């Protein structure tokens, strides 16, 4: 099967031109919301140079990297640090870093290998978990799953540290197949039972994972019909050897980067999965093909995702080039249902439409107001639309271009213009920004 047949590359043409809306779409899905200059650069450069830039290993700016490393020191982020501080640490990278795609894909894998500090209880292990995700986020999925199998946070989260020869705990083996690699229907209960034996013998000792050979089951195990003295890495290898694995990951990536509503066609899934396998599970190869496709820029994908709370809030802050603290933002995001390092269950966040209900919509509005009104004691004037616009004479145009790439109903724009005419300065501009961030279109990625 040819990848080009189902993931045909998007080439701008007069019939399907490269527009500000498409540039915004690409930057929203591959990051957390663009700045005006990022939008303009993407519009000028076109899709391929923009994607190249996103995938290039751009280093974090020295200041942001220094601050992030300092804040990750043991004395800064001790073992017993709270979940909010930990979430703020990552949010600080998202807000200040120069690698939005990298952080976005880390967020995807965090949701995929959903592990929570609520059970793990040790911030240092969760930090290590993030570092593993970060190191392999755009790389080899096989290495990532192997690393995850022996990641201390994951081993506590799914009870591998309790698993002994004769008393294997099946939690990790089950989720490895059901949620991490294959999906329901591609394994049997017997496979899980046998695979669980391969993960026995690991203990948490003095805050370190230690392998105790006498507690490890080194007998033969039969998994997916293959028999041998398999260890954890072998089980991962057996899972990844099944065609269902690559297809499972493609479907999850599609839901995360493409659409909450529609599932990809089987042909699309099969061709992308084949590419993924051929590339030895290299995430960059797969994502570059998917994100460069005509399908990605098509109306069936455009604005077919609800922004997560992080995308919503960081989008506002980045857009306005704000300089807010990650800690107060992390606290507010908890109310909206998204605390980094604390997904609600092993299945991760439900996402999609579940992000929105009467209460969260109200809270989103309140958060937008807190960020932009300059009246909130936690955010003060650090994300002030008035400062950002610097006396811009057409704030409605600038703000709708930034946040919605001018793609909003004329009637809505007219109402915004009327409001701006009546409230042309100071708090009027701030309220206008709040109104734009409360529009239904702004809730969509």
């Amino acid at each position: 099967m040819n990848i080009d047949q189902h993931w045909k590359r998007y080439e701008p043409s007069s019939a399907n031109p490269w527009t500000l809306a498409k540039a915004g779409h690409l930057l929203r899905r591959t990051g957390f919301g663009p700045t005006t200059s990022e939008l303009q650069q993407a519009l000028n450069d076109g899709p391929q140079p923009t994607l190249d830039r996103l995938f290039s290993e751009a280093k974090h700016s020295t200041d942001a990297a220094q601050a992030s490393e300092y804040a990750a020191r043991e004395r800064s982020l001790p073992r017993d640090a709270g979940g909010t501080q930990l979430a703020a640490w990552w949010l600080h990278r998202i807000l200040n870093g120069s690698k939005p795609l990298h952080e976005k894909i880390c967020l995807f894998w965090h949701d995929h290998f959903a592990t929570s500090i609520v059970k793990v209880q040790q911030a240092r292990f969760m930090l290590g978990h993030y570092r593993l995700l970060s190191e392999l986020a755009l790389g080899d999925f096989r290495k990532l799953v192997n690393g995850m199998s022996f990641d201390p946070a994951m081993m506590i989260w799914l009870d591998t540290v309790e698993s002994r020869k004769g008393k294997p705990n099946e939690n990790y083996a089950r989720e490895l197949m059901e949620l991490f690699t294959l999906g329901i229907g591609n394994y049997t209960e017997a496979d899980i039972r046998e695979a669980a034996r391969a993960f026995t013998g690991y203990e948490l000792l003095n805050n370190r994972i230690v392998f105790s050979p006498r507690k490890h089951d080194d007998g033969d195990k039969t998994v997916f019909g293959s028999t041998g003295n398999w260890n954890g890495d072998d089980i991962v290898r057996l899972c990844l050897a099944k065609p269902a694995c690559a297809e499972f990951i493609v479907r999850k990536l599609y839901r995360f980067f493409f659409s909450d509503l529609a599932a990809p066609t089987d042909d699309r899934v099969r061709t992308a999965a084949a590419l993924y396998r051929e590339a030895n599970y290299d995430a960059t190869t797969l994502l570059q093909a998917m994100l460069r496709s005509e399908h990605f820029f098509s109306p069936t994908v455009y604005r077919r995702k609800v922004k997560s709370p992080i995308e919503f809030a960081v989008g506002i802050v980045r857009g306005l080039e704000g300089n807010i603290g990650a800690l107060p933002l992390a606290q507010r995001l908890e109310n909206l249902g998204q605390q980094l390092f604390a997904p609600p269950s092993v299945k991760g966040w439900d996402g999609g439409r579940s992000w929105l209900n009467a209460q969260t919509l109200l809270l989103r509005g309140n958060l937008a107001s807190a960020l932009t009104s300059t009246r909130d004691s936690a955010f003060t004037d650090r994300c002030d639309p008035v400062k950002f616009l610097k006396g811009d004479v057409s704030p409605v145009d600038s703000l709708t271009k930034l946040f919605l790439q001018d793609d909003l109903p004329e009637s809505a724009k007219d109402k915004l213009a009327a409001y701006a005419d009546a409230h042309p300065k100071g708090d009027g501009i701030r309220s206008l920004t709040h109104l734009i961030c409360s529009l239904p279109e702004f809730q969509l990625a």
Partner: protein
Amino acid sequence: MLRIRLIMFALLIATTPSPASDPLSAIPDEADLVIVLEKPTRFVEAGRSFPAIVSALELPAVKELFRLPNVKQFFDLIALYESELQTDWKTLLNDVAGNGIAIGSKTDGGAAVIVIDGTKPKVSEAFLNSVLKLVAREAAKDADKPEELRRVKHGDIDSVHFGKEFHAARNGARLYFANNEEALHKTLLNTPKKTRTDARLEARKLLSGSPDAWLWFDLAAAKDTQAGRDFYSATKRDAIQNLVVGGTIDALGRADFLAAGLTIAPKGLDVTIRVPSKRSELRPELAMHVPPAGTPGSLPLLEPAGVLASMSLYLDAKTFYIERDKLMNDNQKADFDQGVKDISKFLPGSSIRKLFEQMGPYHRLVMLDRVAPLYKASPEQPIPGFAYIGTMRDPAYAKTATGILRAAALIGTPSSGLTMTEQTIESVNVVVYRFSEAKQLQDDLEGLRFQFSPCFAIVGDNLVVGSRPDVLAPVIIALRTEKKSEGDPAVWRAKAYGNGVAGLIGKIPEPLVTNLMLTRNLSLKAAEAETKQIAAWFETLGAVEFRLDHRERDYEMKLQWTLPEAAK
């Protein structure tokens, strides 16, 4: 509504009365909480010039808060009053509130009345008009259909009303503001009973001195509620409550009112809370909290080098043991008896009663800035070292207590791998324990034990127990060099030292630097610079002491903030 509340707050600051009893006499009988500012101008000026506040204003975090629109609006309001009435705020404050301010509130329901006695009726009138104009303007901003101003006659006095929260009136140089219409009407129409006003003035008398602000709270009414009755019946036989706060709860239970006063001076600030409960009337079974007449309430606070906090208190274990049946509920008594039985196994030839009799009633605790790692596996976030210093009535206590400590360590040895050594620190023999780093403790997966290397020693007539050996040297030196004074009448004292906190920040800056980066998105460089600035600010704060004293005629809780010489 926020803006209207700001105006109300600005009114409070921009106003204040002369004879102490004057505005107080207008507060309705129903108020169960009354606050009085006798000299508002002095109060505001003292606050504005208080060195710790002045220096705090230089901290970037505080400066940032001053950029908040609500804060700016407050200052804009003051400026507006100054401009409309063509005067400066100090003169305005004196004209409008020179004879004092009294605030009465009914805590159940939240109705509050402010009575402001000025010195110039004309200025009070102009001021009220200016306030009304502002309120009308703000009300118009807040709603599509702004509230109309209503006027109501009360004999010779007109009251004005905006919506549900703003109610005001003027009588000569006296202004009234309320957040509840009925409360204002009662204030204007009813003459409070003299007995009620006199009762409130008792609070003022009890405080003595010249507080810048004082408060009366109706304890009798609070205790008469179901919640108050439940609290007292639940705590009477609760051993923990009786041990920790038994004296305070008893004193509050015997009093009809509580008085509190705030005094601000260039050398510091103090808050005094008193209740008219005599020392002689304390429940006899609580005598463990009060020393016999003629003996000190507590020993002097120990202040060794690097002290972060120091505590000194009186607690007589012997009396507690004798009175235990009256101080514990049945479950606690059963647990206590079992504990006594268990400990007795380690007291050959002695008993718990004897131990409690031998133990002295004076206890001290110090926390020091000792945070250097004790083990290779030292926890990343160190807990500062601390030491307990207890007096002995009988030298035999030294043998009994150290025997118990050694036995307890011996029991813990197999599981924790404790090893014991003896060291000489400042010529004193010290027993030091260390935990094994090779042993895993299921109960301490976090490695909390690596914050400690417990140690103990006998120094004169004191038993000293430290969390780590390096706290013992400064404590021993402090014990040897302390003046053998008669101690202090307060039965409980605790003091925190600004320079100690500054030193600790210097030794462990990471938590604060990180907090600044994550809270305000500062760069590492800026956060480190601000951390230094905050540490330097702590240096200027001096010390804050909290003390409890069962006095002959009343019970006193006092917070004293003393600034260092340089900051005065």
